[in-house]
């Protein structure tokens, strides 16, 4: 089964052709940088307008790279309907509806969070990270700029939310601490880079909710962000040069260590509590090397198989949307009127029990 998938929930315009939910025939992601190059000149700072301009070139490229002649040879279309920015989501949904109407192909709505989960089912050139077979329950940590969620997956398309952030998402904290330390955007890679040269034990930042019994599987990154801020203010008051790269590196490393500690500890506790057979970590922050390393060590010690997608599937992409559509959306295909799809900015993961 060959699915053309479209993803425009945030800042990336993406399209991909996925076969049997697993094999990536093409995977095109247009970032703003590429758009600047392709269209030349200054590009308007409007996410949905970027998507409008990029969507058709991206779709054509995805079909061409998959070796397809237009929509011939496709079995279905899939598109992200939420969560995300309503204006951005609409561009992808409307393009998908147009294609569906013209081609007669069924159109499957996909939840962006389900997409991140299924990024772990994609075969990225035979890497061992891909999930093979069905070994449920799977404990999933979705960790990105907009989300930090612990989910127990009891089957394809069957989810139970165990907890999540009570305030800021982990990626948001990385972005804001990067801004605080004047490290630039995007904050995740910037903090990671700065932390490389730092000593994570120089400054010990709090691990919010780590031992909180009533919030065992919840997170709070707002307090960690404020702790980093207070640290910088204290150092300033003591006359330290807070722009000194060595000091910035130590603060970045201390912050990253605290964030990673909490993420790994709670994921491991949830996996053990619910007897998970496997653990998946996905979403933009799963590209963080310190998180990948720490989780790798922890789950090796616990004897639990851990899956984290390769870097190019951690950030937003349409390949994961095609995989999610295949595994969890196709059962529902008959009940769905693709042309009546709407977008849902605050869509939650569907819960089945």
């Amino acid at each position, binding site marked *: 089964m060959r699915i053309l998938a479209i993803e425009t929930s945030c800042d990336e315009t993406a399209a991909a052709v996925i076969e049997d939910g697993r094999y990536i025939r093409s995977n095109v992601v247009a970032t703003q940088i590429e758009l600047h190059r392709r269209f030349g000149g200054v590009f308007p*700072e409007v*996410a949905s307008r970027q998507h409008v301009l990029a969507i058709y070139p991206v779709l054509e490229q995805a079909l061409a790279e998959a070796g397809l002649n237009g929509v011939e040879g496709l079995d279905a279309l899939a598109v992200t309907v939420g969560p995300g920015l309503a*204006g951005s989501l609409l561009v992808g949904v409307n393009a998908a509806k147009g294609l569906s109407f013209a081609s007669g192909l069924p159109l499957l709505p996909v939840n962006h969070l389900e997409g991140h989960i299924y990024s772990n089912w994609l075969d990225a050139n035979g890497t061992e990270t891909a999930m093979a077979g069905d070994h449920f329950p799977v404990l999933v940590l979705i960790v990105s*700029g*907009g989300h930090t969620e612990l989910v127990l997956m009891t089957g394809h398309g069957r989810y139970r939310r165990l907890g999540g952030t009570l305030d800021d998402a982990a990626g948001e904290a990385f972005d*804001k601490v990067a801004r605080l330390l004047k490290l630039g955007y995007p904050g995740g890679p910037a903090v990671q880079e700065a932390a490389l040269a730092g000593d994570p034990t120089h400054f010990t930042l709090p691990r919010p909710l780590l031992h909180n019994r009533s919030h065992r599987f919840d997170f709070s990154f707002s307090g960690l*962000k404020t702790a980093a801020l207070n640290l910088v*203010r204290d150092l300033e008051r003591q006359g330290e040069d807070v722009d000194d790269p060595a000091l910035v590196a130590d603060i970045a490393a201390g912050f990253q260590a605290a964030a990673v500690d909490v993420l790994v500890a709670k994921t491991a506790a949830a996996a053990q509590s619910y007897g998970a057979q496997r653990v998946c970590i996905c979403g933009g922050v799963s590209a963080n090397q310190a998180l990948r390393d720490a989780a790798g060590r922890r789950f090796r010690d616990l004897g639990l198989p851990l899956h984290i997608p390769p870097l190019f599937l951690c950030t937003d992409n349409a390949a994961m949307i095609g995989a999610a559509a295949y595994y969890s959306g196709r059962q529902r295909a008959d009940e769905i009127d693709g042309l009546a799809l709407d977008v849902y*900015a*605050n869509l939650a993961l569907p819960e089945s029990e």
Partner: protein
Amino acid sequence: METTSVETARHEDAVCTIHTDSAAETYELGVRLGCLLHPGDMLALQGDLGAGKTTLAQGVARGLGVETYVRSPTFTLVNEYDLPSGARLFHIDGYRLGETMAEAMLEADTFGLDQVLDDPRAIVIIEWAERLADLLPTDRLEVTLDYADHAHNVRILTCRARGPRSAALIEHLLQGAT
């Protein structure tokens, strides 16, 4: 919590300053403020990272009867909550909007700020409101959150009314405090 000064030189320019000693106190102040809000009211929050804007907003939402966790709207730009009163709370964040007003105005279109402002049921909280100042109705309650120099957890909240409606809000808030 300590209210240090109240100026009401011109009625519609009412200003008051409130000190809170902890995030919990900022939240409690939010709860009190939330209890006073009705459709058409707008809180415009300003203040640097970590100043407590989201904490205050969480309290306001609680005061309005929201029982779920109110998360940061930084990523989604706007979060919506149905209220027991039948009103609707819109929690908006200008943090990710363009640094210049022109950019911010274009981007405000993409999440439908106009529709929010036209909604007769809307109660609105906007964080990083200064980014959207030109787009907001004049009569709004501006709350600026500052750090105190001497202690980590102390915040100075300056509430400034921009019209008769928001001036009345300040008056009610102060009545509740005494």
